[in-house]
Structures are given as C-alpha cells and as structure tokens.
C-alpha cells in the first residue's frame, strides 16, 4: 500500500503541492481529480521520484522511498504515463519488455520468464495481436494499452496512472478503466489514477481525492467528494450532482 | 560505477604514456642503404663521392647521413625542385611535388602529390629514393612518417637572406654530389652588380606588392620578415607593407591610398590579375601608380620561392624600380 505524508513540492520559488497526504490501500482504486494545473501530474511524478519533494514522505510497507535506489523504487511502483510522443520506431513487444528493466541484468537481456510475463501482460490488455507492430503505427487507445502492459510487466504492488483516458475514444476509456478496476480488485494492486472525467472517476473509483491549487480539498467515497458544492467550488462552474440511473452513484452535470 | 570508469581512464592514460617506449624500440634507423648508380654523366660536373660520405644536420636538428651522394631524389617542394635542377642534379630527381613547375623538365618527373599537405607516401616509397628533400612547407609529421618508412629525409629550412640561400645551394650540392661554387659565384656577382648600382640611387620609389586580392579593398602583401620585403628593399624600393606587423599581412585600401605607392607589382598576375582590372577598381584611381600606369605583372614564384631564382627576382625588381640604371 502507498502512504503519502505531508508532501510539499516547489517549482523554483513557487509551491505547487501543499502538505499533501493521501493513502492508497492494496485492492482499491483511488481517483485523483481536480482542475488542470491543480498538481495531479506533479503529485504522480513526485511519488514516482522524478520530481524532488521539498518535504514530506512517501512510504510503502515501511520503506521510505527516499532511501530506495531507482531500481528498488521501480519494483514497488509502476507509472502509466500519457501515450504521447513515444519513439515510433520501437515495436510493441520491445516496449513492453522494457517493463522488466528492474529485474534484468545490466545488459538488459530478458529471460524466458521475462518474455512469458510480457506475453501475459499483452494478453491482459488485449494487445498481443499487434505485438510486432511499431508504436508509431498505433492509435491512441492501443498505445495507451501498451503502456499499461509495460507497467504490468514491472510486477509492482502499486500502480500510478497519469490521465490515461485523455485523448481516448469513449470505448477505450471504458475498457481501460475496467481493466484498472480488475487489477485493483482481482490482483490486489494499490492503484492511484489521475482522471479529468469526473463521472468515470465516480464509476470506477473506490475513493476519490479532490486536488485544487496543490491542496487536498476532500478525500472519500465518490458520493462524499462529488458534491455540487465541492465540485462547483473547485472548477469555478456551477454543477448539479444527480443520481446515476443505473449504478446509483453520483453523476455530475454542468449547470 | 562511475569510480570504476575513473580508475579505468587513469589506467588508460598510463598505458598511453607507455607508448613512447614501445615506439622508440620500433623506429628504424634513418639511413637507408645507398646504391651508387652507374649512370651517364650529367651536364654539370659531379664530385666524386668522398670515402667519408655526407653527414649534415638539417633544419629540424636531425642528423642526416648519406654513405655517398644521393642519386635518386624526391623533392617535396617547388623551391627544392628548382634548386636541384639549378645545381645540375635535375637528372637525379625521380619524384617531385604536384606544384613543381620550373624548369619545364621538372614537369616531366613523376608527381607524388602535395596539395593540402597530403603526399602519396606509397608513391614516394615505390620510387625507392635515397634522399627525400623536404622544405618548410612540409610538416614535421610528414618528415617523421617518411623517416619511419626507412627513408632518408633532409629538411631544408627556408633562408631568411640571400646569403642563406647560397648556403642551401651548397647543402643540396653536398647531398647530391655537385660542386656549387661556380653557380654561387655567378649568383653573387649578379647580386653584387645590382647592389653597386642601387648604392648610387638617391630616391627610392614606394612600392605596393599585391600577392593576392580576393577582396579588392584588403589585398595581401609582403611585410617585414618575408623575402618579398627583403628583395624590394635590396632592389632600391620602399615596400609600403614594411610598416605592418606580419610577414604576409593584409593591407587595407586606406593604407594603400595613404602610402600612395608610385609602383604597383601584381604578384597575382599568375592568377589572372591585370593592370587594366586594377585601374577599374573602385577607390584606386587616385593612387600615383594607377595614375601614371606604373602597374606591372610579376611572377610571384621568383620572389617567394627560396631558390636561386630569387636573384632573377632581385634583378627584375631593380629594373622596374630604376629603369634608367639598368638598360
């Protein structure tokens, strides 16, 4: 499980994350929502070690991430970034195999076991049929699934996804998040996913964290966080929250 | 990881430092075995090889030994080629650089390359010379390379005065087994004749010597330290480039106009510069030499190549500067 405690991050002189605390348990999906610029990507990048934190801690199972090497951290935590500007010449297979990096030797030579894992990951995301295609030829949805497969290869207990549904058609948004849900609930991963679509968050997340201006405004079950007061305030737009006719969960509508 | 690389790098530096020991034990001797050819005698008298051979120190401080005068010479510079032919060793020249064009017979000798400083060492080796004559335009690296191939190389340093040029003639004479006394004496006599007449001169015309003018308002000329400057002075002229700092400086049009030379010499006439073209240059019309039409083409090779033709150059300059004295 992932514990983020009092994380503060500065970009130069500007503080972008104020005292952010958030826990993600194994087996749950926590959706990170908030307007653009709130710091969702920054939070994910800081937790994954790419951006240094000014203060605060990120733990898992007692290990503070700061004391870990890059490889050790990569065995705990995998990130699925947005599928933009990927090197077009690599094949899907080569890309997914890179997910085994934390377990490969210095030369990066995969073993049969590594290759089997990669194959299973590709099957999981229904991308095995285009394993030999080049990344440059894929659609946005396909590429995003490939990146998810790569993250699965990392065999980590924690999974972070940075707005994976941006730029995707609706059917791909749904299938991806469905898969993410399964990964949490069947494979017991701790999943933190930044989403801009509030209703998808409501549908697929066990808990929702609202990040505004670098601060956590609310954490809780979807119906607790997706209220018209909180959302209208956060997005500076009057919204109505009604009951979803099928699931019974909250449904956010502008106006 | 990084530390390992640092250590490896230092080890490699040490390894490279061991290089000289290896190279030193591998470098062959500089003297190649010489075979005396039984050839038909040449026009100029040859000196019988002395039993002791020839031992000289060349311009790079290297000791050069020949068991007997060289019979197959490769010349790496036009000036060397001219010297070799002038002292009567023309038939001993088996290879020459690309730019050797005087005398005409030199062009019939096999070329070994030479532009951009790149010679075909294969050609040189194939010619099996017993002497390679290098000049200051050849790099020390080239000398080392040829030495490493077992060839005997003599690096002839550029003379800085006409007297030093005579010395070079003597050196090449020793190396090839020719007596240069007569040649040097005749050159000395010609120079003395010029000196005597110039000593009587009261006014010295100011001279602008154009080596090359890729940009018409900033041509290259001879400055102090160059042979051109020396010859102009000795021929009774005043080189306007003498006040500049380098040996081959650029001079601006302003400076030329300010010096107002009464004679302009076109060293770049070999490359197509003509007096007519100079007259049409913008800003040049006010110069004394242009107004009076005293613009003369001259073969730059006789002014710049450090060989016996420098005396020709001296004579031609003197004639141009003081035509009344040299009918």
């Amino acid at each position, binding site marked *: 499980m992932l514990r983020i405690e009092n994380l503060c991050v500065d970009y130069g002189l500007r503080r972008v994350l104020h005292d952010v605390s958030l826990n993600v348990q194994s087996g749950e999906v926590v959706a990170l929502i908030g307007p653009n610029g709130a710091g969702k990507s920054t939070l994910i990048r800081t937790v994954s070690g790419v951006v240094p934190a000014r203060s605060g801690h990120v733990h898992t199972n007692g290990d503070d991430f700061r004391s870990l090497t890059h490889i050790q951290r990569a065995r705990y935590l995998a990130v699925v970034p947005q599928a933009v500007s990927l090197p077009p010449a690599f094949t899907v297979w080569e890309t997914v195999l890179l997910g085994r990096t934390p377990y490969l030797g210095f030369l990066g030579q995969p073993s049969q076991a590594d290759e089997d894992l990669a194959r299973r990951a590709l099957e999981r995301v229904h991308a095995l049929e285009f394993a030999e295609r080049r990344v440059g030829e894929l659609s946005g949805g396909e590429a995003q699934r490939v990146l998810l497969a790569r993250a699965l290869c990392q065999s980590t207990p924690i999974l972070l996804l940075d707005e994976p549904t941006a730029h995707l058609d609706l059917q791909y948004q749904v299938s991806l998040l469905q898969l993410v849900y399964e990964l949490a609930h069947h494979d017991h991963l701790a999943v933190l996913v930044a989403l801009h679509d509030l209703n998808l968050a409501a549908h697929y997340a066990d808990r929702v964290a609202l990040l505004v201006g670098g601060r956590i405004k609310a954490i809780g079950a979807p119906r607790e966080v997706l209220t018209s007061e909180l959302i209208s305030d956060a997005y500076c737009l009057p919204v109505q929250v009604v009951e979803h006719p099928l699931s019974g969960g909250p449904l956010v509508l502008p106006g | 990881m990084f530390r390992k690389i640092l250590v490896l790098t230092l080890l490699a530096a040490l390894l490279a430092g061991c290089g000289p020991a290896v190279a030193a034990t591998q470098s062959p001797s500089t003297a190649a075995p010489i075979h005396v050819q039984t050839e038909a005698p040449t026009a100029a008298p040859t000196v019988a090889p002395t039993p002791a051979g020839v031992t000289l120190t060349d311009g790079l401080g290297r000791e050069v030994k020949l068991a007997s005068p060289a019979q197959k010479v490769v010349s790496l510079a036009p000036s060397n080629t001219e010297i070799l032919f002038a002292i009567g060793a023309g038939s001993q020249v088996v290879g020459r650089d690309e730019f050797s064009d005087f005398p005409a017979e030199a062009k019939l000798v096999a070329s070994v390359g030479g532009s951009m400083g790149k010679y075909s060492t294969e050609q040189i080796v194939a010619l099996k010379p017993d002497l390679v004559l290098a000049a200051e335009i050849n790099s020390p690296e080239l000398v*080392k390379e040829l030495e*490493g191939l077992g060839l005997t190389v003599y690096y002839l340093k550029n003379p800085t005065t006409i007297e030093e040029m005579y010395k070079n003639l003597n050196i090449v004479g020793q190396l090839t087994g020719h007596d240069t006394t007569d040649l040097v004496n005749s050159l000395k006599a010609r120079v003395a004749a010029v000196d005597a007449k110039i000593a009587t001169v009261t006014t010295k015309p100011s001279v602008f010597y154009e080596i090359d003018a890729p940009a018409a308002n900033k041509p290259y000329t001879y400055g102090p330290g160059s042979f051109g400057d020396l010859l102009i002075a000795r021929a009774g002229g005043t080189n306007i480039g003498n006040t500049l700092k380098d040996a081959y400086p650029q001079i601006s049009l302003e400076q030329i106009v300010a010096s107002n030379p009464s004679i302009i010499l076109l060293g770049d006439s070999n490359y197509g510069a003509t007096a007519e073209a100079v007259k049409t240059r913008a800003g040049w019309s006010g110069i004394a030499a242009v107004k009076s039409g005293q613009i003369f083409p001259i073969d730059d090779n006789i002014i710049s190549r450090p060989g016996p033709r420098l005396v020709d150059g001296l004579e031609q300059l003197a004639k141009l500067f003081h035509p009344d004295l040299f009918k």
Partner: protein
Amino acid sequence: MKPTPFFLVLLALGLALILSLAIGSVFLSPVELWDALRGQGIQTAMQILWDIRLPRTVLVALTGAALGGSGAAYQGLFRNPLADPFLIGVASGAGLGAVIAMSVKWPYSFWGLMAIPMAAFVAALLTVFIVYFLARVGQTVPTTNLILAGVAFSSFATSLTSFLMLRSTGEVRRALGWLLGGASQSGWTAIIAMTPYLIIGLGILTLSGHALNLLQFGDDQAQQLGLNVGRAKTVMLIAASLATAAAVAFSGIIGFIGLIVPHVMRLWFGADYRRLLPLSIIGGAIALLVSDVIARVVLAPQEIPVGIVTALAGAPFFLWVLRRTKNQGFW
C-alpha cells in the same frame, strides 16, 4: 538479437579491410599483394602493404568505429536525428586546441610531435566539460541546455580557430589539412595512443544499449522504469566524448560518418540500441574505410582530405537508403 545482421555487417567489414589493403595510389596486382601478405613479396610491395597500408587501415577503421558508435550514442542521448558526435563541441574544441598548438614551434622529438594531437585531445575533453557545466541546472543536465550550450560554444571555438588561422598565414595550410580530416599521423604510434580510449569509450557505449532504449521514452519514463537517468547520461556522455576526442585528435575532423551511419543502421536493422550501437561501430569503420580508399585513389597521386569524400559521398548514399526504405523505417 538475431545473428544475421552482425554476420552481414562483419562480412562487409572484412571486405572493406581487404579493399583498404589492396587499393592505394600505387597499383599492386593481386599476386604481388598475396606474396607481400605472406612475407615473400618484393621489398617495395612489402613496405607499402605492411608499413603504409596496414597501419593506415587500422587507424581509419578505429576512427570510423569511434565516430559511428558515438554518433549512435549521441542520437540516442539527445533523442535527435540531427545529433552527431560533434554536437556538443568536441570537434571545434579539438580544432582550436590543435591550431593553438600549431602556432608553437615544438622540438622534433616524440613528444614534440605528439603535442598537437595531445592538445587537440585535451581541448576536446575540456570543451565537453565546459559545455556540460554550462548546461547544468541543479542536479540534472537537460538535453536542450546541452545542445544550446554546445552549439554556442562550438561557434565560439570555431570563430576563434578561424581568427587564429588568419593571423598566422604560414600555418593555415597545415591547419586546414588537419581540420579537413585524414590520417596525418600514420604509423603505429597514433593507434597505440588512441586504442585505450576507444576501448573504454566504445566498450561502455556497447553495454549501454538498454539504457539508451529506456531514454528514448523520455527521462521521466526511463527513471520510472528504474534507470538512474542522471548517472547513465553522464557516463555515456563521457564515454562517447572520450572515443570522439581520441579519434579527432589523430585523424582530424571527419563529418557525416557519425551522423549518417547510425541512421542507415537504424533503417536497415531497427532502433534497438543494444544492437544499433555495435552495428554503428562496425558500420562506421566500414564507411570510413571505403571513403578513405576513394580519397586515396580518385585523384592519385593527389590525396583528397577524407572529410571531403565523406561529405560528398555520404549525403547521396544516405538519401538513396532513405528512398529504398521509405515508409518502412521510422526514426
């Protein structure tokens, strides 16, 4: 890694080596060559083969290998198809060092003659050092900064070099010859001096294929997958610069090999750097060997500086390869 690409490429290398030994400005028939190889030929042929062509072939092959390998590494490090080994100033630094050294009259001795290559080598490494520290922002060295600092410093060094060359017209000929490239220091000395740096530099790069693959996805993703990005980049930069500096110090500045060979290898054999790096190393050797043969032969006995041949021949060849593989190859 499939064996086939390496087999083909090594075969081509063998052919190029034979070509370089067989062809020169003096014509040697196959019989003469074969005799000389066995140590039984006429003296001239033996001397040409063993003392002139063999060291030259080795030097050219090593130089080409260094340029091809570091070119591939630079393109991977900077994720830029226009990157070549001289991107961050190695060449201009070396040129400046060489021209400064040429203005001094060194004694005619072993160290006196090593002075110029050594000055070029040191200046090249110093340039990379300076550019690296100019580009640093805190702990990281952003690639954009590196490129900008490299280009700026290169222009500075090149202008300074031109200025120095103008000031001492006597040395211009020598400097130009050096700058245009070509095996000026022949003989085994250069090879012995270069080899340690090439082994270290190219050895490290060959082992860095995996890291380079990761870097193609961006610093962030590479780090998230477990790579110590800062350290990996620094190590690779040093390795590539060592190899390039050693090559430039003894062979002058030879362009296009480092730029084009990796692209050709990528078009033919794919973008996996674990394979691309060793293939570019061998490919660079082949390309420069062939260029050098052309340089020696086209205007014999005149030798064209090999940098001119690589430019004139390299660009059309690359365009031809590009056309043959269009729509199949990706950057």
